[in-house]
């Protein structure tokens, strides 16, 4: 058994994928059961329609939507949580790094569209190129931001780099807005349509009335995200750099005494977090088809919430938190109107998600998977 569990294939591929599957299925199941239970309880209150039937009709689609956006939130949350783990500092400009990656990816695809290559090249190659470019640009931007705005404030009281991060976030939003207005003159960056991404894979499952529809771009999104998560897990747990990152996160002075170049490791952390955010940006752009300089704000805020929900500083926590938040958002947006008979509409979905966050933090302040770390001496 020990040989099996220490087998690298198991450790770095099977286990993480299994973990993701367990989280995704587990969270979906819990929320679905809870919703159906509520539907049964309130069934008698709704006279015009059968609440249970309504709920079950769109349940599979709601779960699919929730998981899709949940994976995006997880990927962005990883950026927040990695930086917090290493520096105990919340990088509020991460949402703009996510936005820049997305815009760069879309502009690349627009360039291909302009030169006509969009129709001739393999669509997956184009997406891969866009994701790689997004990762490179976002990663470098994150490292630059760290050098300019956070490193000089390394010794300052905790609030100061936080404010610097918020300021950097505003600066990046308007810098991108300025660049866009000077180059394209448009506020919106629209994804050119190409390939089969908008099509659906229809799966008729016996027992479910409406066939399940999986949009190709959602499948791609989840697939790429899972690959990145597995890759990140291997990087952090199976390589020397990962070991160094974990060492710096655990105890910075000792790590530097052990011969680890702490500054470089911190830059590498920002690079990885930024690259993940950039990839998430391109995938989000694929889904949303239209980006603007302020598109990073809300997903970034929600991803940060997801990281806190799962236990900030903990990578698995970011994954779980993202999935839960995505599912919560999808469930509340789709079901609130049905359950309250029109009184509360989809616009209150965020209240629901954040209320859950507050509840979790009241009863478990370190988040779902976080450990209560004692005061560092």
């Amino acid at each position, binding site marked *: 058994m020990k040989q099996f569990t220490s087998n690298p294939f198991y450790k770095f591929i099977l286990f993480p994928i299994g973990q993701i599957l367990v989280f995704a299925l587990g969270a979906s199941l819990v929320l679905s059961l809870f919703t159906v239970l509520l539907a049964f309880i309130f069934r008698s209150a709704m006279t015009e329609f059968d609440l249970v039937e309504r709920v079950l009709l769109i349940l599979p689609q709601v779960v699919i939507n929730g998981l899709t956006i949940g994976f995006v939130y997880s990927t962005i949350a990883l950026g927040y949580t990695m930086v917090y783990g290493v520096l105990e500092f919340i990088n509020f400009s991460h949402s703009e790094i996510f936005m820049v990656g997305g815009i760069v990816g879309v502009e690349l695809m627009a360039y291909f569209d302009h030169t006509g290559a969009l129709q001739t090249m393999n669509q997956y190659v184009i997406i891969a190129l866009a994701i790689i470019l997004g990762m490179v640009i976002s990663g470098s931007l994150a490292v630059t931001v760290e050098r300019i705005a956070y490193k000089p404030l390394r010794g300052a009281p905790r609030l100061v780099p936080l404010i610097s991060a918020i300021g950097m976030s505003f600066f990046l939003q308007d810098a991108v807005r300025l660049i866009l207005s000077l180059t394209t003159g448009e506020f919106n960056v629209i994804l050119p349509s190409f390939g089969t991404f908008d099509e659906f894979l229809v799966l008729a499952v016996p027992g479910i009335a*409406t066939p399940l529809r999986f949009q190709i771009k959602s499948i791609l999104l989840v697939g790429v995200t899972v690959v990145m998560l597995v890759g990140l897990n291997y990087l952090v747990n199976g390589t020397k750099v990962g070991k160094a990152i974990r060492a710096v996160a655990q105890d910075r002075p000792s790590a530097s005494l052990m011969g680890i170049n702490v500054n470089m490791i911190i830059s590498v952390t920002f690079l990885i977090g930024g690259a993940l955010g950039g990839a998430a940006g391109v995938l989000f752009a694929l889904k949303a088809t239209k980006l603007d300089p302020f598109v990073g704000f809300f997903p970034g805020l929600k991803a940060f919430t997801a990281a806190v929900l799962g236990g900030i500083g903990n990578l698995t926590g970011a994954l779980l938190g993202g999935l839960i938040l995505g599912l919560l958002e999808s469930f509340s947006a789709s079901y609130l109107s049905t359950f309250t008979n029109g009184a509360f509409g989809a616009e209150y979905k965020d209240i629901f998600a954040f209320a859950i966050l507050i509840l979790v933090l009241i009863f478990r302040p370190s988040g779902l998977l976080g450990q209560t770390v004692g005061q560092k001496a």
Partner: protein
Amino acid sequence: MNKRLLALLSVLVLASMVLAACGTPAATEAPAAEAPAATEAPAAATEAPAAAAAMGTIKIATQSPLSGGQSLLGVAIKQGAELALEQLSGDLTAMGYDVQLAPYDDQATPDVGVANAKNIVADSEILCGVGHLNSGVMIPSSEEYHTAGLAFISPANTNPVVTTRGYLEVNRVVGRDDVQAPAAEEYAFSTLGAKSVYIIHDKTAYGQGVAEFFRAAAEEDGITVVDFVGTEETANFDAIIAPLVASAPDVVFFAGIYNQAGVFFKQAREAGFEGTFLGTDGMDSSDLADLAGDALTTGGGMAYTTVAGPASAYPKAAQFVTDYTAKFGAAPEAYATQAYDSMGVCLTAIKAAAEAAGGMPTRAQVAEAIRAVSYEGLTSTIAFDEIGDLPLAKYFIIKVNASTKDAWGTNEIIDSFDLPSPGK
């Protein structure tokens, strides 16, 4: 190290000053802060060497979103007004006045609109204004205009509250939502034969207002209102679309602006909605076709009502279209013709007030003159009633045939009618 920092800082400051001065529309490059956005625009206006006119300077302000997601329509308003100023201010210039345009960017945001409004009323040379695009921005900003007695003519605001407050200073050259929304509902009921409708609005004063009027009219006619949803979401509408597609309504009525609607239509059509999309005048923009693509022409298609038809719908506007395209390099979008007429009314009223006063008129005199004037505009003969509405306004129902931005001109006007204003 300190000297280097100082040097770097001064270079950055210099660079930003150069950028601000060299940019074309100074208003669009200003960072999000309201104060710089407002102060850079009048700087652009007064940068043009003001030939010391014998009788003084008259400025006419415009406020519309010149940057941001709705800028296509906002810029059209500014440019329509600009063309009118160029072509129609001859009489005033002959009287010895120097007439200038003072454009402001309200970014479709109420806070920015009010901040700009304060700056506008503080500039004593501004005697009249044309704007806004969004009712939600016009309503709070017009409180400022009313306090200062500065008259504003709106080329695009349709929410009834804009004029039902009864301010002397607020006028509009277009119709109202309490007539437009029932017209849309009538189209859905009679022409489309819809039995169920799903209403979505964008939670602004305009969107929610239109949606409420539509819902009231639909319930009167017996159409089932499946759901009434408000959303500020701009990117991912999955969660709203899931119950929508499951309930399969005949018509989806979206009360909002094109930049949000376009993305929604695309995603809804992809998710399997087969019915018709219905909208109101916020949809009238070629960017909608850019964003939604063939979601507008497949399935049940898309139609919208509007209070400002395309320039081609007005027989007198042919020359305007030619001049506008020659000056700005693109065909006029919706509301450009209305902005042209609004500026025309402003100029005519200022001229009448100046003649009556025998010199530079006051803002109150201009406001009175606007209410007294009867102006032959490109869109219609404009004479305001006692609250600033047109007694009879034109409404159009337009079917969308375009799935790309360039084809927007192929939309056809299915119907157009003149309806009276409901008054207070």
